[in-house]
């Protein structure tokens, strides 16, 4: 297998490459979902797999999310390792019972006797005006209910490594890829997500945050597509003399509390940036963790920047008002530095 030191590929390709390698190394890995076959996945996550592995291992499904996600439960109990695509995370509501009451809990309810090595991969995020039912992050909901690991890669390297880790893992994993990181031609995509990706299979362990950039003055904790925006905001802020440390959580479950706490102990300030809704979600959890474990280190109130508890509006100007932007991040950091 060709390896290089500088093979930049899109996140979509990183994901489909991980899937191909997993399917090569393990015949138990199967893939199904809507338009994952000939089409290659609406967001390119399964490009080329149908051609490579054929209709027995790569299957298009009807628009029956409860049935085909639930099918992964039974198939995994019988020894398969299904990867299933829920086209948009926004559609979770038609299939949530199978996900959270069964896929997530059967291991526990069976006293550890049943395992469901299933990856449910799904597209998240906005930024391209797909409005209220096709632009949400929503990962906090999956992180709230016990029994699911929740992975949200911010770049192609992590995307490949976390996908391989998720597939090899014996627990169900909700794997959320942000549409705006995939490098699709027909959608704005953050070029920061297109990084060097080794050709060989490798894993990025689930549960280890990454210091995306070191800094001294303020900890910025974030995930997914907000990592790239935060990095850009950090550059701007550096010019103002503000040194921002960026923590890319990578997974919400397991949550790398130590990474967050350590950073705050160093910087004494915390900004949380999240593309999910603000209340009762990721930004709240991080804030609470710090108020529990590093309260005395905080020199100013924490600050949360997230979708302000409104549905994602359609029009460009409205959408960009509610989804945290580079400038909004800059302002949030400034505000924390001033308070």
């Amino acid at each position, binding site marked *: 297998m060709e390896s290089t030191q500088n093979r930049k590929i899109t996140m979509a390709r990183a994901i489909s490459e991980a899937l191909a390698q997993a399917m090569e190394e393990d015949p138990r890995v199967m893939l199904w979902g*809507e338009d994952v076959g000939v089409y290659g996945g609406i967001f390119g996550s399964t490009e080329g797999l149908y051609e490579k592995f054929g209709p027995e291992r790569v299957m*298009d499904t009807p*628009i029956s999310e409860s049935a085909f996600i639930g099918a992964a439960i039974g198939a995994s109990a019988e020894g398969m390792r299904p990867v299933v695509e829920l086209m948009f995370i926004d559609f979770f509501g038609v299939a949530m019972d199978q996900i959270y009451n069964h896929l997530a809990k059967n291991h526990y309810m069976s006293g550890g006797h049943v395992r469901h090595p299933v990856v449910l991969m799904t597209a998240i995020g906005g930024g391209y*005006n797909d409005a209220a039912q*096709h632009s949400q992050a929503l990962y906090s909901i999956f992180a709230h209910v016990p029994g699911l690991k929740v992975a949200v890669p911010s770049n192609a390297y992590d995307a490949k490594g976390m996908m391989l880790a998720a597939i090899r893992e014996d627990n169900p994993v909700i794997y959320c890829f942000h549409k705006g990181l995939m490098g699709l031609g027909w959608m704005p995509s953050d070029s920061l997500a297109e990084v060097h990706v080794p050709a060989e299979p490798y894993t990025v362990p689930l549960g280890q945050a990454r210091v995306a950039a070191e800094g001294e003055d303020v900890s910025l904790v974030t995930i997914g597509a907000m990592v790239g925006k935060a990095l850009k905001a950090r550059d701007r802020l550096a010019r103002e003399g503000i040194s921002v440390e960026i923590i890319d959580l990578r997974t919400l479950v397991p949550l790398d509390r130590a990474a967050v706490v350590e950073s705050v102990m160093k910087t004494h300030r915390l900004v949380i940036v999240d593309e999910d809704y603000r209340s009762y979600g990721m930004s709240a959890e991080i804030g609470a963790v710090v108020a529990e474990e590093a309260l005395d280190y905080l020199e100013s109130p924490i600050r949360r920047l997230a979708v302000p508890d409104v549905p994602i509006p*359609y029009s460009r100007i*409205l959408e960009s*008002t509610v989804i945290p932007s580079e400038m909004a991040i800059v302002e949030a950091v400034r505000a924390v530095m001033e308070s």
Partner: protein
Amino acid sequence: MVNNGNRSIIKSEPIDYLDFHGGMGMDTVEMYRIMCLIRVFEDRMAETYTEGKTPLFSIAGGPVPGEMHLAAGQEPVAVGVAAHLRADDVMTAPHRPHHAAIAKGVDLKAMTAEIFGKATGLSKGKGGHMHLFDPRVHFSCSGIVGAGLPPAVGAGLAMRHQGRDGVAVALAGEGAANQGTFHESLNLAALWKAPVIFVLEDNQYAISVPKSQSTAVMRNSDRAVAYGIPGVYIAGNDVMAIYEAAEEAVARAREGRGPTLIEVETTRLYGHFQGDAEVYLAEGQKEEWRRRDPISRFRDLLLARDLMSEERDQEIQREVREQVEEAIRYARESPEPEPSEAFDDVFVDI
């Protein structure tokens, strides 16, 4: 033991509905006009959508934001059904809603402005092309496949409870017939004898997945048996055949005799969404669909039967083109919403 039960009624001939209905109050030319209006709207939307986009289908550029699912080719369904509806009848539609909205009488300018994301839009730019709401004509739609069916049942229930003789039409793609809401809603409507007409647009594909790879039966209309209600399949994408089936179903519902399931063979003349390369279509499939364009066929029929003159046709073409241009002009010239608009309407203020 295999159950070979009778299936739904299949109608495939554009036979003499015209003769039958010719004198009974149906305005075939008006139906034709609305079909033309829809087609021109969709064609112009396709053009407008690509304006200023580089690469061609970059969702971020140009005057029209977001995804775009066009319904050209599916005009007969919307028009044949809506011809029987009053403004206070209810219609719920799916992610591909323009033809339905226009046929139901949604204000074209406000709808276009909404699609452009403008402050003058139906929803002040907050809804978008998959979320058109016009309570004036009791129209709504949703981007979630199969999601319009339960609300239609509830609307039907409400109208009956209120003593209105209204009906609710739930429009959905053939792909929606495999979603749980389809089953639950048909059962509930049948059980409660709710005045609902379920209409499936069988354009044979759900994005890239052909019906044969998603649906265990040939015709979803056969599924009516599972609810003890009438099921009709209309082959041929013929507006008059649809008109007739809808007439019976709407009358049945209005009279309190319960729901009907109608499935209509139709064709999707654009891709699933604009930008869809349609690699999954067999060669020649698209051309074949275009050859059977339901609007030209209807025009030929109307002309052949002297129900419409060439002049009237040209006048109609002029008219609808103007109407569409005016709507697009209105949308273009309308202001963007104020950013603060994003924060309103989460809740009704008390």
